[in-house]
Structure formats: C-alpha cells, structure tokens
C-alpha cells in the first residue's frame, strides 16, 4: 500500500493515488476488526492524503507541481492526524491514561494544529 502510494506520488498518477486511498481504508477496517486500533488510525491519514492528491490531480487535468504535492499531502496528513490523535486520546481516556501521557498527546495535538495553520498561510 505504501509502495502504491509512493509510486503514485513519484509518477504523479491520479489513478494510482485513488487506488492507494481505497487500499488504505480497506486495510484500516481490516486492522480494526483484528483489534489493531493504532495501526488502523495510522493508515487513515495516509489514505486521506492519497485521496486529496488523487482528486486534485484528476480535476486539474495536468500534472501537479512537486511543491503542490508536498503541500497537499502535508495538509491532508495533518488534518487526518488531528482526528487520529483525538481518537487515541478518547480511547485512552476510557483506559484512564496517566497525566504525562495526556500532556504529551495534548502538546502534539497543539503542535500539529499550529503547523497546519502555518502551512495554510
């Protein structure tokens, strides 16, 4: 899946990127069913990144420049990562996570949001 995603990025083929999205989401649901919660959550932002890049590439009818690919994939990963962190936080809150872990997760969340804002501007 990672290879498919990377190949789509390097060759800038929208079809490969969209295929990578469906593979990531399918794998995430499978991993979730097997109980690998974190693995499932890691694959979702990657899938969302492939989804955004693929859609933009198809729509523009032109190969996206490398800085555009970098920016979009970074933003998509960041937006997905925020949700993934909230999910981990939510699951671990139920498992009564210790204070340092909670602090670390909160700081990471804030850092991602700040980076997203900077990248957008």
């Amino acid at each position, binding site marked *: 899946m990672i290879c498919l995603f990377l190949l789509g990025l390097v060759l800038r083929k929208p079809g490969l990127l969209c295929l990578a999205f469906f593979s990531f989401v399918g794998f*995430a649901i499978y991993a979730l069913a097997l109980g690998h919660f974190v693995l*499932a959550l890691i694959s979702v932002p990657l899938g969302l990144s492939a989804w955004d890049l693929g859609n933009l590439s198809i729509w523009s009818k032109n190969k*996206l420049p490398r800085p555009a690919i970098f920016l*979009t994939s970074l933003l*998509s990963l960041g937006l997905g990562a*925020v949700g993934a962190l909230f*999910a981990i936080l939510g699951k671990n809150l139920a498992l009564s996570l210790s204070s340092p872990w909670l602090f670390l997760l909160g700081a990471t969340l804030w850092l991602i949001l700040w980076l997203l804002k900077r990248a957008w501007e």
Partner: protein
Amino acid sequence: MVGRKKLVLEFILLILLLATGLILGWPELLLFSLPFASHLLLGTLLSREFRPKLQAERTLSSPRLVEGENLSGTITLKNRGKHRAFVGIVGDPPLIQFDRVAILKGEGELRINYEIRPKRGLYRLSGPYVWAADPVGFWVWEGVMECQAEVWVYPRTERVPAPLFSPRITLATPGGAKSRCAGPSGINFYGTRPFLLGDDPRRLNWKALARREELVINLYEEPRAAVITVILDARAEAYAGQEELLELGILAAGSISRALLADGHRVGLLVLSGGVKWINPGFGRHHAEKILLTLAQVELQPTEAFPTLAFLPWEYSPKGSGIVAILPLRKEEVESLLSWRGKGLELLVLGLVPPPRESQDELENLAERFLRVEANLALHRLWAGGVRAVPWDGKAPLGLALRPLSREKLWSRA
C-alpha cells in the same frame, strides 16, 4: 472530484461510518471515524478563509504586425489574496495554447512569457481560463479572467511596380493613370497639332516651325488618378486541389493595392468567397490598412451564389474604371473575363498557377502537365481577347511577374 462534490461525498462516508458503529455497537469504529471528521471539518473551516483575489494582466509586444514577424506576449496572474492557492491557467486561444499549474502565494504572481510567429488574421483574445483551488480541494473557482486584446496580423506584401492603367474615365486629381485627354497643359509630352487661334504662344514647337514652316503647338498629357478595383477570387471551387495558391493571391492583392495607392489611385477591394466582401474605393494610409485587414481575414469558402465570375454584379466597378483580377487561371473563367472587357472596363489579370513539382508518380506528372497546358491555353485566349494577363507561380518575385504590365516596361520600350 473537488469542491462541493467532495464535501458531500466525505460527509456521506462519515455518516455511514458513524451509523455502522452505532448499529453494530462498535465503539472503535466510532473513534475510527474521527480522522475523517477532522479532515472534513477542519478542511472546510480552513477553506472558508481561502478566497483568492485573482487578477490577470496581459502585455503584447505589438498589437499590429506583419505575417512572419515575431510576437512576444506576457500574461501575469496575480494573487491579491492573503492565502496561497493552486492555480491552473489555460490560454491564450486562438493565438497560442498553454496549460500551467502552479502554487501562488499571497500577493504572489505567475508570469507566463511566450513568443510566437502568428499566421495572418485578426485574433480577438478574451483572456486566460483560470481555475483556483485550496490545497485540499474543498473550495474551487474557475472561469475566464477578463483581459481582452486584439492582434492584427497583416498579410505579407512585396514592393512591386504599380501596373499601368489608362482607363476611359479618370479623376480630376493627379495619379498614375495615363490620361486619354491630351491638352496644352500637363506634364508628359503627348504630341503636336496645328496652332489654333487662342492657343498659348509659349507652347509653340519652334523646331517643327522651322521644319514645316507652319505654326505647331505641343500637346501634353497629365497623369490622373483612376478608380481601380482589385478583385481577389477566394472561392473554394476555384482552388480545388491547389489551396496553397490563396496565400499567393493574398500577397499579390495586398502588394498591388499598396502600389496602386502609392501611385495616387482610388483603390477598392472585392473579395469573392462565401459572400462578397467589399471595400469602397479610397485612398491614404488608413485605407491601405483597411484593405490589408480585410485580406488578413480571407479564407477559402464554398459559394453557390457565384459559380463563375460572370455572376458578379457590375455595381462594384464604376463605368470606365480599371480592374485587377487575381485568380487561379482556369479555362472556365476565360469567357467571364472577356465579357468584363466587353463592358468597357480596363482589365488586368494576374493568373495564379501552381509551381512546377516533380513527382515520382508518372500519372501525377501527366496530370500536372495537363493543368499547365490548360492554364497556358486560358492565358493565350485572354491575350487574344485583348486582356493584359500575366501568370505567377510564386517562385519568382511578384515584381518581376508584374513588370510587363508596369510603366517601367512601357517606357523602356518607348
């Protein structure tokens, strides 16, 4: 898929995940939907800030040029907004086609330079087609950025000697036409006649008096301007199989019109294609520009109204004026051309013939020889009917082909 469609699809996916998690009582699936939710919500919120204020500007090296000259242009797309945007720009039809995608930062600009050698014609440029999207693709805009321009590409012309005309009716203004009315005033020597009472004694020909021992005065003629119509045949039927001759015809029409205008004549233009394009006889630089602009837009078009030139209305050419007909030499048009001469118009024909080509195929060679014989036959019939006609195949300069019809030739003979 971008914009509203993408938004709706992601929302449906999120609702499906949540519904499945709730129905199956699977809390992990509910938490699993959080990355989708954050992607959708944060992406939408951030894209709301994204409103690029795009502006396009265009510069051209020259809005008017002659075919064969280079035209350099620049299109600048500026992002007046604060946020960066993905932009795609497609332009500049019908002059040039380019397709670019780039990231424009806030207050940034994308400059596209191009240099082309356009063909003759009038190009109306509306503006580039631009699309802009936010980096994640939740907001898009596409449309044509208004920055209109017009580029006139005149046909190429050559410096040629003006064909000599001596039409029956000339204008009062001086020009290059040989006047048929000789008199005691004028510039060029015409002849002599016996002295009559009232003649100016200063015009007496003293040498003739000494020889004949009778009073003789000199007669002069004054070159006058005439009304001359340049007719260009652009009917598709006339050029069947030899479409490249149209460019020669346009070059000849432009060159001859300019030479006639420089000679002081009133020149009109009639282009016969799908319909009739007519420019009233006039003079001056603006008129020359008008003629060249009309010639720039000439295209081969089929016509049903004018199967032969005999159907052309005579109102276009004033009585006793001159006509320069530029057309492919075909036997079908000979009778029409001879009938023009019969109507008292001074006719001059520039017959366009294809240049000789050596082909490997014997049949093709034979066909070409037949075409050439047919053109020569048409030419001889025109000559026999008293029409001044010359062939031109574009290999030799136009000036050389027109030399037999020009003043220089006649003077050198004299």
